C-alpha cells in the first residue's frame, strides 16, 4: 500500500519547513519534497520606500545573517548612487564592509558548526536526540562549546564595531560606510581581553577544522556515502579566480568542473538565471536559463564556493584547500557532508582575512562615501554564509523603490536540498514501513548540511523543529513524529 511520510518541522536549521516522502505499493520511495511553509513578502512591502532605507529594512528578513542582506542591498544601491560595484568605493568604505562581512561569516560558520552540526559529530548521528543537541555538547565537551560561544561573540563584536550594533546595524550606506574603525576599536579586536583576540580565533578555527578532519578519517565511509549526487555549483569568485566572499564575478561549474557560467558580470544576472515556481512550496527554484529547469539547477554555499574557486588567497586556508581538492583529484566535490569541511576551511579563511584587515591602516581613514551619476537600477550580490545572495532594486524619479527582487542563498539551494532528501530517503526508507529515529535524523542531516535559513528563503520568520508523518495510499496517517 502506498504511503506518505511527513517530516515536520525539521530541527536545528533556521526557519520552518516540512518534508513529505511518498512510498509506492512496494514501500519504495516514489517522491520526496521539502516544503517551505513560510511566507512574508518583503519584495512587496519595500516598494515605495526611499531607496536608502533598503539595507536597513530588508535585513530584517533575518536575525541570523542580517549583515549579508544589509551588504547585498548596500551593494545594489552603490550602483544606484553611481558609485559602481566593488572597487568603486573608497578603500575605507570597501574594507570596513569586508570586515563586517567576514566577521559575519566567522560568527555564522562558528554557530553552525558548534551549535547546529557538532552534536551529530561529537555525540553520534544515532545518539539519543535528548542529548544530541547543543546542551549535550556543552555537558560532554565543555571546552569546545565554550570556544563556539566565544568565536560567535568575537564575530558579533566585529559586526557591532562596523555596523553599529550586533544585529540589524546601519553601517553600510549607499556608496560606502558611515564610520571607520578607531585605533581603540581595532586594538580591542587585535588584542582583546582573554581569548577574544584574533590570533586565538585563527587557532580555534584551525582547531575546529582539524577536529572535523579527524572525525572524517574515522568515519570516512559514512561521510562520503551519506548523500553523494552530482550537481552544478555556483558562486562569486574574484576576477582572478580566488575565493572572495564579498565581491566578484559570477561563475558556475558543472559536476566535472567545466565552466558553465564563465565569470560574468552579475549586473546581468537575469540573463542567466530564472526562477521556477511550484505549487507545493513558497520557495522558488532557481536554475541556469541556458541549461533549463532539469539540468540548470545548482548548489551554492561553502561546498559550491570551494568547487568554483581556483584558490584561496590566505595561506593557512589555501593549504587546507589543496588537501580538500586533492580528495576529489581537483574535480568538483559532490559529497553533501563535505559541506561541513568546506565551511570550516572558510571559517579559517575568514579569521585570516579579518587579521589582515585589522592590520590595514585604511580602516582608520575618513574618506567614507563615494557618489556619482544616479542610476535607476542596481544589483548587489554577496556570498552569504549559506551561499550566493542576490538583491536587485529599481527606483523611480522620486527615489522610491518600485521593484525589488531577492534570491537568497537557501532558495538557490532549494533543488539540491530536495535532491539530498530524495537521496537519503531512498537509501534509508526504501522497503521500510515505520519511521525510525535514524531515518528521521538522516533526512534532517541532509538538509542541515546546507545550513538552510528557511526564514530568509521565503523571507519569513520562525524556527524549524521536526515533524514527520507517514501516510498510506488513502491518506491515512500510519505514524507521526513531532520533536
Amino acid at each position, binding site marked *: 500500500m502506498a504511503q506518505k511520510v511527513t517530516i515536520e518541522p525539521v530541527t536545528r536549521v533556521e526557519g520552518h519547513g516540512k518534508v513529505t516522502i511518498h512510498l509506492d505499493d512496494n514501500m519504495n520511495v516514489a517522491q520526496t519534497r521539502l516544503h517551505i511553509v513560510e511566507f512574508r513578502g518583503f519584495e512587496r512591502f519595500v516598494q515605495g*520606500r*526611499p531607496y*536608502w532605507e533598503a539595507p536597513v529594512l530588508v535585513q*530584517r528578513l533575518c536575525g541570523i545573517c542580517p549583515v549579508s542582506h544589509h551588504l547585498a542591498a548596500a551593494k545594489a544601491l552603490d550602483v544606484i*548612487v553611481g558609485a559602481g560595484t566593488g572597487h568603486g568605493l573608497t578603500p575605507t568604505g570597501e574594507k570596513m564592509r569586508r570586515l563586517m562581512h567576514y566577521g559575519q561569516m566567522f560568527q555564522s560558520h562558528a554557530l553552525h558548526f558548534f551549535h547546529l552540526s557538532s552534536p551529530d559529530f561529537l555525540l553520534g548521528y544515532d545518539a539519543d536526540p535528548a542529548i544530541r543537541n547543543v546542551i549535550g555538547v556543552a555537558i560532554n565537551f565543555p571546552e569546545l562549546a565554550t570556544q563556539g560561544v566565544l568565536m560567535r561573540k568575537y564575530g558579533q563584536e566585529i559586526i557591532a564595531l562596523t555596523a*553599529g550594533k550586533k544585529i540589524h546595524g546601519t553601517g553600510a*550606506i549607499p556608496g560606502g560606510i*558611515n564610520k571607520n574603525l578607531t585605533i581603540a576599536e581595532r586594538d580591542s579586536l587585535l588584542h582583546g581581553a582573554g581569548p577574544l583576540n584574533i590570533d586565538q580565533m585563527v587557532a580555534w578555527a584551525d582547531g575546529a577544522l582539524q577536529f572535523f578532519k579527524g572525525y572524517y578519517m574515522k568515519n570516512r565511509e559514512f561521510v562520503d556515502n551519506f548523500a553523494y549526487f552530482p550537481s552544478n555549483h555556483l558562486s562569486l569568485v574574484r576576477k582572478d579566480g580566488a575565493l572572495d566572499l564579498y565581491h566578484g564575478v559570477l561563475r558556475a561549474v558543472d559536476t566535472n568542473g567545466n565552466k558553465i557560467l564563465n565569470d560574468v558580470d552579475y549586473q546581468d544576472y537575469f540573463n542567466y538565471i530564472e526562477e521556477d515556481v511550484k505549487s507545493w512550496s513558497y520557495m522558488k527554484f532557481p536554475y541556469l536559463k541556458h541549461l533549463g529547469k532539469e539540468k540548470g539547477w545548482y548548489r551554492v554555499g561553502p561546498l559550491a564556493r570551494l568547487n568554483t574557486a581556483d584558490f584561496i588567497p590566505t595561506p593557512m586556508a589555501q593549504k587546507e584547500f589543496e588537501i580538500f581538492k586533492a580528495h576529489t583529484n581537483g574535480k568538483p566535490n559532490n559529497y553533501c557532508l563535505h559541506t561541513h569541511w568546506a565551511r570550516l576551511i572558510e571559517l579559517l579563511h575568514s579569521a585570516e582575512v579579518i587579521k589582515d584587515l585589522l592590520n590595514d591602516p585604511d580602516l582608520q581613514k575618513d574618506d567614507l562615501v563615494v557618489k556619482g551619476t544616479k542610476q535607476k537600477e542596481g544589483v548587489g550580490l554577496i556570498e552569504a554564509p549559506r551561499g550566493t545572495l542576490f538583491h536587485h532594486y529599481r527606483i523611480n524619479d522620486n527615489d*522610491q523603490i518600485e521593484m525589488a527582487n531577492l534570491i537568497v542563498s537557501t532558495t538557490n539551494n532549494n533543488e539540491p536540498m530536495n535532491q539530498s532528501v530524495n537521496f537519503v530517503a531512498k537509501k534509508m526508507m526504501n522497503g521500510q514501513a515505520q519511521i525510525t529515529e535514524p531515518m528521521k535524523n538522516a533526512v534532517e542531516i541532509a538538509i542541515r548540511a546546507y545550513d538552510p535559513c528557511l526564514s530568509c528563503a521565503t523571507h519569513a520568520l520562525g524556527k524549524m523543529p521536526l515533524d514527520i508523518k507517514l501516510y498510506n495510499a488513502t491518506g491515512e496517517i500510519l505514524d507521526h513524529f513531532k520533536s
Partner: protein
Amino acid sequence: MSEIVKFTIDGKECQGKKGQLIVDAAADNGVYIPVLCHMRDLIPAGSCRICTTKVNGRYMAACTTPVDEGTVVENDTPELLDIRKAIVEMLFVEGNHFCPSCEKSGNCDLQALGYKYQMMAPRFPYAFERRELEASTPKIFLEKNRCIFCKRCVRVIKDDQGRSVFAFKGRGKTLQINIDKKLAANLSDEMAKKAMDICPVGAILRKEVGFVEPIGTKKYDHKPIGSDLKNIYQ
C-alpha cells in the same frame, strides 16, 4: 525688566519671569517637563499634551500656561506619568511607526519618550491609518505615516517671504501634513536639514543622506531624553 516670581514644582522652590511658560521656566530651574510640539520662542501650539501637569490642582498644558507668583506645579507624579505614557501610546497607534528601519531612530523624541515611559505594547488598538508618502520634492521625503501633528515644521520652515513650506490639510481623522511643492523646490539644504532636525519624529527626511549618522552618535543613544535641558527645545 520682567517681574521675577516664585513658584514650586513638586515642592521644589523655583524662580521665573512672570508670564513665562511653565515648560521654559521649569527647564531654567533644572526640571524636565517633556515636550513634543513646543519650541522655545515659538507661539505655543499646545497640540500634543505630553507636557500635561497639574497647575494649582488643575490639569494644564505646561507649554501654554504661564507662571505666576505662588503657582504650584505637579510634574513627576505617578498619575501624570501614566497620563503621559498613555499620550505616547496614542501617538504610536494613531500613526504608522516602524522604528526598526526609521533613520530617525535614536534621534526621535517620540521613540525616546516611549523608552522613558517604558512603553511596551500600547493599551489602545492600532488605527492603521492609510497615509500617502510625498516623495516628489527634490530635498524632502515626507513620511506622513509618522507625523504627530506637532506643527513645528509649519511654524518654523518658511521661505524668505515668510510663507510656510508645510501645512495641514483636512480635519480630524483625515488631517495630514503636506508640503508645498513649489516652495519646497527652492528649499535650501540648510532649511531642509533644519526641517528634519526640528521634526520630533521621522516624518521629514532629507533625501539621499539616510543613515549617514552611525549608531552610537545619536541624541538618545547614551542618555535618555530630558538629560540635556539646555538643548531639548532647540
